[in-house]
């Protein structure tokens, strides 16, 4: 990498005796405190930065706030005009009561959870094994095969919906969990990300295990997997989010309300009630809350895991 060419590698060069103020500050405060690698230490850049950040944050949070606000209004206020954050008739829980009164929410949430967990577990397992095969083993045709898998990242999933539905009919799987889960397990991009990470694991570790007599499965399970925990977490998080929010395929492959996921179920509520801003906002909030809570709880790990994917680091 370029870092090697830029870093001073000549051991004979004596260290400078006088360190610039910025380096001293850097050492003193550490990253993420008073010293910015790009912008420096001045007061003005920091004030400007804070202003810009505040502005963008408001811009990004206001649509959320408006949705939350609307969900606590009466339908009359919710469809009234403009920028009134405080409703004339006062705040109310009516919209939530109506949504809960329809009683299907827990079932849909449970379906979403079961489906997302199954898809995530299966995807991580089969993708990690395949990535290991492509990164660490030699077999006939693996380069061609890997090229095919990479190329398949470009396939727009929407063009597969019709043939997939026909397949599910033929396999007699329509309106089952299997029909929702199985096609979502195919994630070529995740194989690519995992392989890239496995490529970076020092070969010496694996060789040491092999000298101790470990076979491929043992190396995979006891050496590669433990070292890859952060990337596995990252992949699991991506897959979970995508599965939870996926709409089109669960919508097409299920018609039984008892099998619907949260987004699909909420969309049927919307259809049956017509255009109602407060109720739609309330169901949107309820549909978004689980993932938002998960993100708030595991924020650090999620960000860290993105950092350790090959995506972020290089």
């Amino acid at each position, binding site marked *: 990498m370029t870092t090697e060419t830029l870093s001073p590698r000549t051991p004979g060069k004596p260290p400078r005796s006088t360190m610039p103020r910025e380096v001293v500050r*850097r050492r003193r405060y550490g990253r993420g405190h008073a010293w910015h690698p790009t912008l420096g230490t001045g007061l003005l850049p920091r004030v400007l930065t804070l202003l810009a950040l505040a502005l963008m944050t408001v811009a990004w949070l206001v649509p959320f706030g*408006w949705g939350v606000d609307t969900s606590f209004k009466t339908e009359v206020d919710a469809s009234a005009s403009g920028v009134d954050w405080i409703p004339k008739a006062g705040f109310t829980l009516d919209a939530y009561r109506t949504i809960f009164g329809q009683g299907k929410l827990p079932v849909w949430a449970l379906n979403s959870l079961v489906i997302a967990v199954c898809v995530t577990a299966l995807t991580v397992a089969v993708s990690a094994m395949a990535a290991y095969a492509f990164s660490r083993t030699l077999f006939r045709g693996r380069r061609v095969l890997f090229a095919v898998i990479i190329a398949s990242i470009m396939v727009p999933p929407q063009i597969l919906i019709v043939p997939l539905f026909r397949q599910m009919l033929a396999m007699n799987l329509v309106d089952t969990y299997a029909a929702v889960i199985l096609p979502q397990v195919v994630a070529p991009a995740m194989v690519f990300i995992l392989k890239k990470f496995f490529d970076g694991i020092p070969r010496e570790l694996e060789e040491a295990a092999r000298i101790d007599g470990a076979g491929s499965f043992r190396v995979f399970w006891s050496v590669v997997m433990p070292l890859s925990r952060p990337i596995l977490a990252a992949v699991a998080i991506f897959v979970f989010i995508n599965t939870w929010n996926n709409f089109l395929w669960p919508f097409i492959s299920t018609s039984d309300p008892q099998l619907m996921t949260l987004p699909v179920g909420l969309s049927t509520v919307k259809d049956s009630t017509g255009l109602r801003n407060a109720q739609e906002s309330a169901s*949107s909030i309820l549909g978004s809350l689980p993932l938002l809570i998960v993100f708030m709880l595991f924020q650090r790990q999620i960000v860290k895991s993105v950092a350790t994917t090959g995506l972020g680091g290089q």
Partner: protein
Amino acid sequence: MASVSTPARQVAAGSRRPAATDRSRSSGGTGWLFATPFLVFFTLFLIVPLGIGLWMSFTNSSLTGHGDGTFVGLDNYTEALGDSQVWETLGNTVWFTVLSTVPLVVVALVMALLVYTGMPGQWLWRLAFFASHLLPVAVVYQIWSMLYQPDRGMLNGLLQAVGLDGVTWLTDEKVAMWSIALVTLWWTVGFNFLLYLAALQAIPDHLYEAAALDGAGAWRRLWSITLPQLRRTTGLIAVLQVMASLKVFDQIYLLTKGGPNGSTRPILEYIYDTGFTNYRLGYASAVSYVFFAVIIILSIAQLKIFSRGED
């Protein structure tokens, strides 16, 4: 990428025993064993439906039985290439890709650079910029269709509050695609932002220290260290973003249904309409494959551009 070329060289050299440094690579059956579970899913739910779709593109299959599924050769493809709707919707798709990709890369980078200043309350910024990425498209649609309402939406309320004219966000042919791009930016920029943030964290401290020793100022550090160090990430984000934007469908379908006057209709919606509204599955499949070919060509071109000058 050195690790990829090593085994190839070995095979080419015809060495029966792996070299000592490569002993860690097992060969033959083990690889297949590990790859098989994924390959089963991959074949069954990606290759097979892709094949079925390809077959249908050479037939006059339909959902209702108007077409009987007989083989019609290249008829669908000839029709597709002469179909003005195909070119129009393809143009819309490319226009959306241009409109969305540039801000989705630039805004993400700006966000990451601003957040990565050691400002207190990191969790707040991350939450603010990433949370919208966690919303299902139906929720995004719900929120923004309220904000965009021309007579009583919040955006026009704000414009009027500062004395400007309201905008017909989703019903003006000139504005609609920009409105869609804006929603997309708000909805999806958080992911690119996190990738940039991670890439910034991965830049080694000693580069900045060395630069400071050499007396480089803030701009110099930005141009000579930060941005060059982020180049690979930028290339990757741009490639991923173009691919994602070319596949746009959900938010447009929900917000404008492709209108006004087809000005925001992406090619995937044309395919969807042809298949599910007009029941012409064979023709829809053919257009799918034309689109697929365009995606492949654009992606390869882009990969070539961004991988130039590396390694």
